């Protein structure tokens, strides 16, 4: 939007007099200033929104279309965001006690990290699981592990987020089965499964099946939950990992929204009614270092999703237009050098998320670049959120940075860049095609390479890494997963297998195969039946692998 001509004139005057004098004497530190993602940063931003009409179109009021200022009318004056620390390691027993600790410290939601074999659908006794069991999260082989994981945690009282994608249906089924045993009805359950397979192909790598059957599994979950588990967030469409893979802020939003569009389209194609599932979609973004750019990013994403839902998909229910999101501070910005500095980085990123209007937040622990976070580090990370919430005062007003000339300028710039990508992706035949051709991966890789090169050649300063370096002792007191753990987990699995009803397991697995073979059937009910009989995650995934095949990475270098 044009600034007023009067203002432009005044600006030119200023540039030719005051500014020029200073620049002549003291040139600026750099020839060019950009945001962390290379958007041009204006020296002095000027108002962009000059009329009421523009204000209403672009910003509006919180809780109303286009939701730029937030999805709730009162935001943090009503309730703080959910403080949700992603945790999990080792056995179900160990993770269970970490969850109880976190809840006792004032954390308000659980976030379950699974180990890689679980995420890729291998049992702990699979040869491919060697060395990986319990490493980056908790190992779950059967319902038994899930029962232990939530032992003593009332599922009607907590909201649980599970970072699980390719086998999301199976872990959700296990969660439902545990609730059943606790006497909690499905309608009372609150939580989220990540269930976002497209970004696995792009950035995170824990895929199992090819896109088509994967999308079917996802729409099966949408459909099942809309009937049976109405409060469940059936997907968390994630830009977080895309950013971690090295994308720009614009790419993060663009590819995430494009994924979202693909899921909505897939569900509509499967015959689902928009209003039956679309209000259960949630998002997950990264909070990176460039504070103001990040705030702009969140605001732009919100405004755009509302528009997409309304204009592209014809949504009428405001709930389906709201982009609700979880945020995690950027793990890739943590440094192994001078790890305590990470506390400061995380604080800035926390502010970005809060200024950006997040619904929930995970703050990284300072030692995450080195190993699993210690209890003390996790506590500091949680305290960071609490200090911002209770002490900083930024939560007293809704969308405090609205109207900042610079932030509004960046919000517009990000939006423009994202629309451009969305058009390009549409031209390529949609997100699945764009991923299959490697276009998305290539774009991210270019950005990642550039970013890293800048660090290499000192153009981008990382404190403690390429500037302000000190000699350091190797860190001590790092938490490590016991190498014995795999053996223990395998023994536990063997015991469960020997005690279950083999005939029933066989039957239930056969039923899954049958359902998988008929595209019109929903896979959730037979999967739930099978986990109740203690069929293992690996057994169920193998049946599906057999029918669906496996995805092959499409490399671009």
């Amino acid at each position, binding site marked *: 939007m044009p600034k007023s001509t009067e203002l432009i004139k005044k600006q030119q005057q200023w540039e030719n007099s005051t500014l020029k004098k200073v620049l002549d004497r003291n040139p600026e530190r750099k020839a060019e200033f950009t945001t962390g993602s290379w958007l041009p940063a204006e020296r002095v931003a000027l108002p962009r929104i000059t009329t009421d009409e523009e204000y209403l179109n672009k910003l509006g009021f919180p809780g109303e279309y286009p939701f730029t200022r937030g999805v709730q009318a009162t935001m943090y004056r009503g309730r703080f965001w959910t403080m949700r620390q992603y945790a999990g390691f080792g056995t179900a027993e160990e993770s269970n006690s970490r969850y109880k600790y976190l809840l006792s410290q004032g954390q308000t939601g659980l976030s379950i990290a699974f180990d*890689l*074999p679980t*995420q*890729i659908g*291998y049992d702990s006794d699979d*040869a*491919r*699981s*060697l*060395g*990986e069991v319990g*490493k*980056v999260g908790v190992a779950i082989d059967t319902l038994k592990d899930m029962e232990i994981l939530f032992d003593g945690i009332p599922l009607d009282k907590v909201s649980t987020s599970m970072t699980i994608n390719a086998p999301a249906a199976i872990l959700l089924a296990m969660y439902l089965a545990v609730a059943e045993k606790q006497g909690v009805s499905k309608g009372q359950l609150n939580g989220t499964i990540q269930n976002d397979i497209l970004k*696995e192909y792009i*950035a*995170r*790598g*824990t895929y199992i099946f090819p896109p088509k059957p994967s999308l079917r599994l996802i729409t099966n979950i949408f459909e099942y939950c809309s009937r049976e588990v109405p409060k469940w967030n059936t997907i968390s469409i994630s830009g977080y990992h895309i950013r*971690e*893979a*090295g994308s720009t802020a614009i790419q993060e939003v663009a590819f995430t929204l494009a994924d979202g569009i693909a899921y909505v389209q897939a569900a509509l194609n499967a015959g689902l009614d928009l209003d039956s599932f679309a209000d259960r979609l949630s998002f997950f973004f990264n909070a990176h270092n460039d504070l103001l750019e990040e705030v702009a990013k969140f605001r732009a994403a919100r405004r755009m999703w509302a528009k997409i839902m309304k204009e592209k998909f014809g949504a009428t229910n405001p709930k389906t237009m709201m982009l609700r999101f979880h945020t995690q501070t950027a793990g*890739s910005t943590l*440094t*192994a*050098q001078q790890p305590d500095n990470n506390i400061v980085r995380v604080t800035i990123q926390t502010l970005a998320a809060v200024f950006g209007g997040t619904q929930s937040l995970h703050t990284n622990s300072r030692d995450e*670049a*080195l*190993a*699993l976070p210690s209890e003390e580090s996790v506590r500091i990370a949680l305290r960071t959120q609490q200090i911002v919430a209770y002490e900083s005062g930024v939560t007293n007003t809704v969308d405090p940075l609205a109207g900042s000339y610079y932030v509004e300028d960046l919000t517009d710039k990000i939006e423009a860049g994202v629309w451009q990508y969305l058009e390009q992706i549409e031209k390529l035949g949609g997100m699945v095609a764009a991923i299959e051709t490697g276009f998305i991966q290539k774009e991210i*890789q270019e950005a*990642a*390479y550039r970013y*890293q090169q800048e660090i*290499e050649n000192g153009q981008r300063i*990382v404190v403690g*890494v*390429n500037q302000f370096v000190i000699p350091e002792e*190797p*860190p001590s007191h*790092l938490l*490590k*997963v016991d*190498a014995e753990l795999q053996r223990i987990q395998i023994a536990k699995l063997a015991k469960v297998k020997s005690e279950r009803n083999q005939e029933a397991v066989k039957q239930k697995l056969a039923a899954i195969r049958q359902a998988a073979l008929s595209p019109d059937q929903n896979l959730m009910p037979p999967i739930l039946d099978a986990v109740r009989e203690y069929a293992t995650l690996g057994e169920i995934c193998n049946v599906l692998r057999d029918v669906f095949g496996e995805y092959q*990475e499409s*490399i671009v*270098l």
Partner: protein
Amino acid sequence: MNKKLRILIAKPGLDGHDRGAKYVARALKDAGYEVIYTGIRQSPEAIAQTAIQEDVDFVGLSLLSGAHNELFPRVVQLLREKQASDIIVFGGGVIPESDMPFLKEQGIAAIFTPGTSIAAIIEFIEANRPRVSH
């Protein structure tokens, strides 16, 4: 003329975080090496077999899940079993200092942790050139 060095960049284990591996692969290419990249989720057996078929001079392993103590030494051991112990193995990823002595002892020639510059990796490769140029 210098012999063209061939380097295999491989990701053992199950983690899909290939940002680092891909960066190193590309940066080594830009430094003039021939780089073979295998993609994620490679078993130690597949890595060893690939290294031998491609007759590489170096194998660079990247792993972020924490399974390095199990998987890195396994690659070295398999190369030894296949009479290919002249192939130099180095590693990178989230690897605590306390694991390094063990990994070195197991035959991992160098470990590069996050924040290492590519120049350091190149320096390592060039320092070892005499060992592989036969």
